[in-house]
């Protein structure tokens, strides 16, 4: 396959910092690209031999169950696709991967990844954000730090604000 059919994140934010990205992304369902490392559709990844240079991406309608989670545990990274920025299923998928199944590798947001979603994404457990190519890096870094306080627990903090208040009131 010619490289032109592969996507490369122009701007990747990893753990809050811009990073040079090694991984290419293929959306071709039926053919494994030559290039490594590469992120490929889930089914293609499942059908391939174990290769640390291959990683899966999940469509937003994926239903994660124990079996799939056990398979994904072996992946060097898991990407979750946002086919449209208004499709919020990926947020739940990331939380399930992290909180229920304890996935420790990179969880990467791909697709329609826009500046104003990044704060929520990072709270849901995405630690790598492949910005859509027209997004501005400085806007993105600013948006990531939009809030210094949250009411709910998330992957970033297991404590709800109401619990934190009680702890602080009790001198904790």
């Amino acid at each position, binding site marked *: 396959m010619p490289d032109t059919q592969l996507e490369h994140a122009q701007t990747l934010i990893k753990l809050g910092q811009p990073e040079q990205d090694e991984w290419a992304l293929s959306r071709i369902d039926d053919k494994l690209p030559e290039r490594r490392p590469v992120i490929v559709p889930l089914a293609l990844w499942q059908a391939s031999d174990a290769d640390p240079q291959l990683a899966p991406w999940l469509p937003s309608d994926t239903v994660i169950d124990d079996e799939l989670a056990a398979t994904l545990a072996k992946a060097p990274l898991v990407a979750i696709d946002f086919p449209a920025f*208004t499709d*919020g299923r990926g947020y739940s998928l990331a939380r399930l991967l992290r909180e229920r199944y304890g996935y420790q590798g990179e969880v990467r947001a791909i697709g329609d990844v826009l500046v104003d979603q990044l704060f929520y*994404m990072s709270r849901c457990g995405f630690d790598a954000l492949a910005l859509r190519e027209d997004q501005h890096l400085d*806007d993105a870094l600013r*948006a990531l730090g939009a809030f210094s306080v949250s009411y709910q627990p998330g992957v970033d903090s297991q404590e709800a604000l*109401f619990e934190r208040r009680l702890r602080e009131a009790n001198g904790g």
Partner: protein
Amino acid sequence: MYRYDTYDQTLVDERVAQFRDQMARHLAGRLPEEEFRPLRLQNGLYIQKHAPMLRIAIPYGMLSSTQLRALGEITRRYDRGYGHFTTRQNLQLNWPALEDVPEILADLAKVQMHAIQTSGNCIRNTTSDQFAGIAKDEVEDPRPWCELIRQWSTLHPEFAFLPRKFKIAVSGAAEDRAAIQVHDIGLRLWHDSDGSLKVKVLAGGGLGRTPMIGDVVREDLPWQHLLTYLEACVRVYNQFGRRDNKFKARIKILVKALGIEEFRRRVDAEWAHLKDGPQTLTQEAVDAAREHFVEPERGDVSEQATAAFEALRAENRAFARFVTNNVTDHKVPGYKAVTLSLKRREHAPGDVTADQMDAVADLAERYSFGELRVTHEQNLVLSDVPVDQLEALWQELESLGMANPTVGTLNDIICCPGGDYCGLANAVSIPIAQALQERFEDLDFLYDLGPIDLNISGCMNACGHHHVGHIGILGVDKKGEEYYQISVGGNATDDASLGKILGPSFYREDVPGVIDKVLKVYVEQRHDDERFLDTYRRIGLKPFKERVYA
């Protein structure tokens, strides 16, 4: 009422800064309208027919006098000196300038207010009983629970892009005054035989294009699990709710498609993992929330004062009318809750001018501990008025034009802004309300009719809750012409029901005449003190239909 601490304040301040940045990027061309749209909606900002519209959150309808004064000032500075209270206990500004909105939000933040999640496909303002905390039939004050839900749902990172909007209502009384059966999730707080607090959870109710009554997902959820259970419900909806068709995207469609058993099974499967997790409520956490809603320092009202009030009521007919219709019993003897009617012909239902806001704020301070409530019927309530001050308050309300003794009558119309303002509307609704108020203004006639909810929506989105009006009016568009469809038999309270459409729709000018015929059938057929709704339920649609289309 709830007062912000530094965390709440920081959050709304940072929200203002975030929106200022988004607006600047939008105006600079770095954030195109289609991507800006969900962001502005989640800050309450619509682009409407004539101008932008800003919907300001009034969490579960609780408002302080300071906040109301600030709202009045905002309508003067940034709008045309009035605002519109909505059926979801919020306030809408009809004419703000787009670029002023960050400033408006900053002014709101100064009085612990915001417009967060008042629109968009996210969890909206949680609504409740306007008599929360003072109702005689209350089992549990819903406000601390509403506040816990408000915090849980505010900027929830997982649920900002749901398939569609999501509305939660909470009731803690014997009578449901929060319309919990027609919300995406309705919660009812109750005590079991051991006296422990349980939550009944309904899901899948709603109005709009496909009106439905909610199904019971769980009868007796222990209170500790409220937030984790809500999280499970919304997560199931987020993952499985339809996203291919905006008109089929509400949770009610999912609940009906799966069936309540399967929906419950999925919620329970999800909840099994969340139960007892980080958001499990403790007694200490609930007590901390309750501390914000302590009883005000009500002085004793003497028996003499109560006797004097009763005597005045017996001798002054106008006062008696006001008390009968606009005054509600209080759990504390000697105190009453007073409903300020925002229904008068000169204004659209729910509209209040800035000067009236100032005046009402003064009244709240002088008569009711500086607090007031917004009702889903688009009125205001002063919740703690001693009986010996009712007469004075009544006279002040008279001079403000807010003492119309018609609360709960046909004249107390619920009405959306309609085609005069709203970009979605198919037809006007305010002029219909005004025409009806003009036609049916005779008090003796209104009282003889008894309690009738007449609700008007200018389109099928049903902001005027027409499906659950005893009489409902819906504006429809037929080839560019405005018509009105009339239904009867809806009800939003405990025995909730959806209205049935009479038949083909009517021209605008015919609507008052049609309503008159509907009322005549009721008056002729009713038994003794039978309410309109009960007569309809007994005799059915047919007699109404025959008269109207005769």
